């Protein structure tokens, strides 16, 4: 190779390296691994009633959603987390299927119309409010009787800026705020 061509080759290679590096430092979008139940969770949950788990409602703002990976479905993540916690507690579940607007009002309407909760169990509906990264998670939960009576509601929030706990710390704390709540435990009985 002539020296002039060698210089050109080095320049192209250098440019390629720069482009590659620039690609590497682009901030990654947030996409957590699937939820896993904490084996050391400090609460016990039991119920003889079947729990119908509604698919979670996505209330994320555009700003918050922009920080998430497009492949990540935050509402599905929350539904999955709730179902896994109930399964780990040995509580029977029913999948919810109803054609009403996604939201707590829609659930209440479905209950009033008899489209939900006909099995005599309770209905758990949840909404994800904020989840821009692995530090903050905010969710709303509402538990209804089969007749549409609101039995329990709570807004759970965890902001974890500590090195304590793993990355799963924040979702675990949110689940603990729900499942370890004595009022929730009483309502789900």
């Amino acid at each position: 190779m002539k020296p002039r061509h060698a210089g050109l080759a080095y320049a192209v290679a250098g440019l390629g390296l720069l482009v590659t590096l620039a690609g590497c430092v682009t901030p990654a979008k947030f996409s957590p691994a699937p939820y896993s139940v904490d084996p050391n969770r400090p609460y016990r949950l039991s119920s003889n009633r079947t729990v119908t788990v509604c698919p979670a409602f996505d209330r994320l703002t555009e700003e918050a959603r922009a920080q998430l990976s497009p492949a990540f479905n935050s509402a599905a993540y929350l539904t999955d987390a709730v179902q896994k916690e109930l399964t780990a507690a040995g509580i029977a579940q029913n999948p919810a299927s109803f054609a009403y607007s996604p939201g707590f009002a829609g659930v209440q309407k479905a209950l009033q119309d008899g489209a939900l909760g006909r099995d005599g169990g309770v209905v758990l509906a949840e909404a994800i409010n904020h989840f821009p990264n692995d530090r903050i998670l905010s969710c709303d939960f509402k538990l209804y009787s089969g007749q549409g009576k609101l039995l329990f509601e709570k807004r759970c929030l965890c902001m974890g800026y500590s090195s304590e706990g793993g990355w799963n710390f924040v979702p675990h704390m949110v689940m603990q705020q729900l499942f370890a709540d004595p009022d929730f435990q009483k309502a789900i009985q």
Partner: protein
Amino acid sequence: MRTLHLAHGLLVLAAGFSLFVLGGCVQPPQRPAWRYLQRPVVRVAILPSSNQTAQVGAPLIIDKLWEEHLRAAGFTVVNADSVVTYLSSRGVPVAKLGTIQPAQLGSDLHADYLLEDDILVWGTKYRVLVGGAVVSCRSKLIEASTGATIWASDWIMQQQSDSGGNGLAGALVNALVESVVDSMFDESTQLAKQGVTVQSMFQPYPGIAPPMASAP
């Protein structure tokens, strides 16, 4: 002479009344920091800080600062002294505080939340000609009924100064606690209004350590 006394008395009374009215006018507005938490009154118990440093007075300063700022933000506070009194009445040494379940503590202290602090660094560092104060702490707000963490942070503040000393460290902590409580209030109010948006609590406060845990 009697008339003069009477006039003087009336003047003092009027001044007192004016002060009373003015006092009412300048009272800070009630800051509804509890709204997001959906409870009429949010009661926070400040657990005596655990101290990993040689500065014996550090926990007293931190606990008192939390108390002042939380009260100013509209929270009902059970202060660290009351917690110590409660522990004494049960015959539990402060070092064994962790053996009592959060639900038990919350119930006994009539508190919704428990604030824990672990002081990691408190003091002065010297470099060649100038010194500076550095304070580092691990703070946690726990929901008493469930034992779940609501908010947790590892934070460090340092400031360079030629005077240094622990007075500066105290001032640093004061600034930090004020900003943290204010940001908790701002966040909760914003959440209460919008129901959906939370921004990172510490973004506007440089000097606080970035998060240390890492995602997989």
